[in-house]
């Protein structure tokens, strides 16, 4: 029973991180490999706003979220915008380089030590008893609920919102979108800011639950196989992929070998690339087939 709870929590973590990958990929075909570092940045921003607004929980969170949103816009405007029209691979390499740059900067600004935002905000993280003797920590539970809420909001936004439709249009046919008056730069900036926002939320909740350290980047990296397995441009796929990867990881760690934890997502990824490269729910693109 505890295993099932663990699977759900891990799946929620991966899902919340994955929707960031999906948002950017769907709109601009770029895989943002700096997402893990951006997650971590969100958590660090929370630490800073926590000390700025000491005591006022709401302001600290709101400020941190707002800052993360702005970081996303800035990353697009000052960096990724220069690469529109270039090869996708160049953009992906740029995100990798951005991740490295951010990592260095974060250590310089906040030091490499493990931090505990929960302590800084004077919040506690008690375990909650669930049926079947399973336990879940408060923040993990909050994370699961938040993930569900964010996914619901994103579904509604993309399906019914005006800018959501523009994002979908720009992702399917950027040239036509531009020819019909859709401002591509605005759409891309929106995608980046939403992605960074969801990533920051993920980072903050993970940090509140289990501390802020460089392992968060590894978690971020492990989540992109979940997105890919489900289909890089599908939110539904991200949910499915997260469940599959989380399930495989928890079960294999429990029954086979704990060392497997960091490699399982990539094994699942390889399996999916062999069988169905565009993922379970992804649009079948012009992937070269021999």
């Amino acid at each position: 029973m505890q295993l099932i709870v663990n699977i759900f929590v891990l799946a929620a973590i991966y899902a919340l991180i994955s929707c960031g990958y999906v948002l950017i990929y769907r709109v601009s075909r770029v895989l943002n490999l700096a997402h893990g570092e951006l997650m971590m940045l969100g958590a660090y921003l929370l630490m800073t706003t926590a000390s700025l607004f000491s005591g006022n929980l709401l302001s600290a969170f709101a400020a941190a979220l707002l800052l993360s949103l702005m970081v996303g816009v800035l990353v697009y405007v000052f960096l990724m915008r220069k690469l529109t029209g270039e090869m996708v691979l160049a953009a992906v390499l740029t995100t990798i380089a951005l991740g490295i740059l951010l990592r260095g900067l974060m250590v310089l600004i906040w030091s490499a030590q493990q931090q505990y935002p929960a302590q800084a905000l004077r919040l506690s993280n008690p375990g909650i008893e669930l049926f079947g003797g399973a336990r879940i920590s408060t923040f993990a539970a909050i994370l699961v609920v938040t993930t569900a809420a964010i996914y619901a909001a994103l579904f509604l936004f993309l399906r019914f919102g005006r800018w959501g439709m523009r994002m979908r249009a720009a992702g399917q046919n950027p040239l036509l979108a531009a020819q019909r008056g859709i401002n591509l730069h605005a759409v891309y900036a929106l995608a980046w800011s939403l992605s960074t926002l969801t990533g920051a939320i993920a980072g903050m909740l993970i940090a509140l639950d289990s501390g802020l350290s460089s392992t968060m980047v590894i978690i971020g990296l492990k989540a992109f196989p979940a997105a890919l397995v489900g289909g890089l441009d599908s939110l539904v796929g991200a949910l499915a992929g997260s469940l599959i990867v989380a399930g495989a990881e928890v079960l294999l760690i429990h029954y086979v070998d704990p060392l497997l934890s960091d490699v399982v997502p990539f094994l699942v990824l390889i399996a999916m690339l062999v069988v169905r490269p565009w993922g379970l729910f992804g649009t079948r693109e012009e992937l070269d087939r021999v």
Partner: protein
Amino acid sequence: MSKRMPRASGYFRTDYRQDFALVQTTLQRLSLAVLILLLIGYPFFASPFHLDLACQVFLAAVGSLSLMLLTGYAGQISLGHAGLLAAGAFTVGILFKEVAAPFWVTLPAAALVGGILGVVFGLPSLRLRGLYLAVSTLALHFVVVYLGAEYETKRGFSTGILVDPPQIGGHSLTDGRAWYFVLLFAAGATLLLCLNLLRSRTGRAWGAIRSHERVAEALGISIAGYKLLAFVISSAITAVAGALFAYYRGFVSVEAFSLFLSISYVAMIIVGGMGSLLGALLGAVFVTLFPYVIEAALLALPGSRRYAGEVFAVNYASFGLIMILFLIFEPLGLVGIWNRVQNYFLLWPFKHRPLAGSGK
């Protein structure tokens, strides 16, 4: 990729052998001779620290040349280079610890392991391109590193495997100068191998595949065969580089083969300039020496003792920054800059070369 015009005017090639030769004009021969003299003389007036730097550059060059073959010439993206280096290093480590194998067994074994892994890394390339291929190589890198970590923990070497230096007729290879020449030879041999590969049918096939796969296939070039060949050759060379790395450092451990190392090699070929062996060499020099330059610059700043602990982070950040700058502003790399400067002086007072194919 067209051949550059020999710089001397009045130079005419009159038979195929001349056209094919690597070194052609007198100026080229002279420059090569001077370069060789400098390289041979270097260890005799360099400090041990600088000798070590040169050795690191040569080691990096072997790896960057092989990656350039794969990505720059055959057009197959690989983000898993560190995994192949790890494979070579671990082959040496495992064979040394388990059966005390000497270097003339471990090095070929590393090449063999590299070649086999090359097939594994290369299989996705038969179905995927671009981003998805890069992602598959990334995944395989993690798998290889995991296997290495598994060996380390299961055999109790959790801090790493110590490896004795290679023995030749009773003499251990420990002298810095001796290593310099060994690694110089390794880098030179790799360069020669690459140059010859690229002049051959294989090199031309790779170029065709990189330009336009469908057309290459229609012309009868076996896409699958040549792609796999690119992976196998590149991986074998990389594994040998990893093996040499193991012997040089005397130490093998998974931590050394991180994602960052893979990215460093990718940075080498980007910063150096894709599609050119000279680019691979320049990139290897640049990326290897870069952290030392940054460290020296940092220490030259006032109040340097405060920053001493931050050197690693500063390295990281500036590496990311440099990579971004090159990707955005100078995608053709150092070779691109070099070509532009050369062209400016060669063509002055004209500004542009005639279009390719419009007659020499």
